[in-house]
């Protein structure tokens, strides 16, 4: 997993070119492929050597595994799209913490640092929890009032 970190530069997004991303998508959809198989389905319009160089670069960035098959390599993505996304997120936090004395970082730097989607989901869940708490308090209040009136 650590080798995948070499794809990160100073920013949090993986530094992949459009063609590298296209090849990665193809490999995710096919599971594994040789350069010839990548070219065979006709969606990639590049020279064999260009594709070969690019998948080799992805391999060196730690995004692909490869095994010898005949006289060529068969490439397999090392991470699923979700895993790659997770590694990206983790690395951005690691870079944040590595930028200074991590122990001095205020808690607020870590809290709420999730992606917008996850933060939204957690906000919704928090609202549900608070609503349930209110309901519980109200029902307890009603119970104690009822006991008091008896």
């Amino acid at each position, binding site marked *: 997993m650590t080798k995948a970190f070499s794809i990160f530069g100073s920013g949090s997004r993986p530094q992949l070119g459009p063609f590298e991303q296209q090849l990665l998508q193809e490999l995710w959809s096919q599971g594994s492929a040789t350069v010839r198989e990548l070219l065979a389905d006709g969606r990639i319009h590049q020279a064999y050597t260009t594709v070969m160089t690019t998948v080799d670069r992805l391999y060196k960035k730690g995004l692909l595994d490869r095994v010898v098959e005949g006289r060529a390599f068969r490439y397999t993505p090392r991470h699923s799209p979700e895993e790659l996304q997770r590694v990206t997120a*983790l690395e951005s936090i*690691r870079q944040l913490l590595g930028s200074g004395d991590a122990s001095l970082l205020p808690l607020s730097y*870590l809290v709420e*640092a999730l992606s917008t989607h996850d933060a939204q*989901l957690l906000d919704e869940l928090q609202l*549900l*929890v608070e609503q349930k708490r209110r309901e519980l308090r109200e029902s307890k209040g009603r119970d104690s009032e009822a006991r008091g009136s008896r």
Partner: protein
Amino acid sequence: MFALRGIAVSLTFFVLVYCLLSALVAVAWRSLRWLHARGKRLAGLLFALRVLPLAASIVVTFTFVVPSFQLLEPRSMDIDEGMGAVPLALGIFALLLIAWGCFRVITAQTKTSRVVARWLEGARPVAVEAGAQTVTFCSRSEAPPLTLVGVRKPRVLVSKSTVALLSQDELQIALRHEIAHMQSRDNLKKLIFRFCPFPGMAKLESAWSQAAELAADDSAVSNLDDAVDLAAALVKLSRLIPVEAAPVCTVGFVTGSIRARVARLLAWDEAGKAQPTRVRPWYVVPPVLAVLLCVLATYGPALALTHDVTEWLVR
């Protein structure tokens, strides 16, 4: 040669039963209807299914293969059957599989120990109501919010941010959740999974992990107030991003589907919890006795059959 042949044949049976059952479990586990069980029972069933191939292959090897070889294989020096290519190849494969399993276990243990030792720098035990001797406060920033670590001497690590974020009640119930994992020996179970690898088992392990979380939620919660506190703790701690991936022998508090766990906690049914399903172990006794009697009645022919298969494999 006799002993070597015996070992090779035993390992051959072991690996054949293990691989066949593993393949069967990996393909068929989701279609089993009785997996609609809930909570602790579901976690137990999934764990049993996951370790069934290993357990069954060990039982078959030691109950049938070893005795059949010992009793029925001629020991005469005049008859040298040789080891046979199939038992030799499968025996080596079995040894490699066992060695691979051991390597995975040792690696997981070593990696966990290294990471946990780093988390524990400057840590101190905390005296809290729920399991005072097992809770440790970690001051290092890379420590996870709340997690159970260790197999032999498990303990719950609580981070600075967790103590800051959670109320007293929320912290107590969250600790109870982790202690439920400790009582279920979930880290040991994870290590057992590491020992018996097989392709296609990841989804079953993931389902077990989710079921184990729900089971720990069930064990921690005793009323609706607890359930809401646990849900609140879960949402709060989900906002903390882990600084590094947790090693194998740890169980984090924020694991599995948070949405599903929170929804389940908020819909907590106190009546259901107050009347837990009665476990009647004596129901198990007749089937177990019946199986034992069948095994005893057919043990001789089963040994002979096993020996015939052995002969066929060797020749």
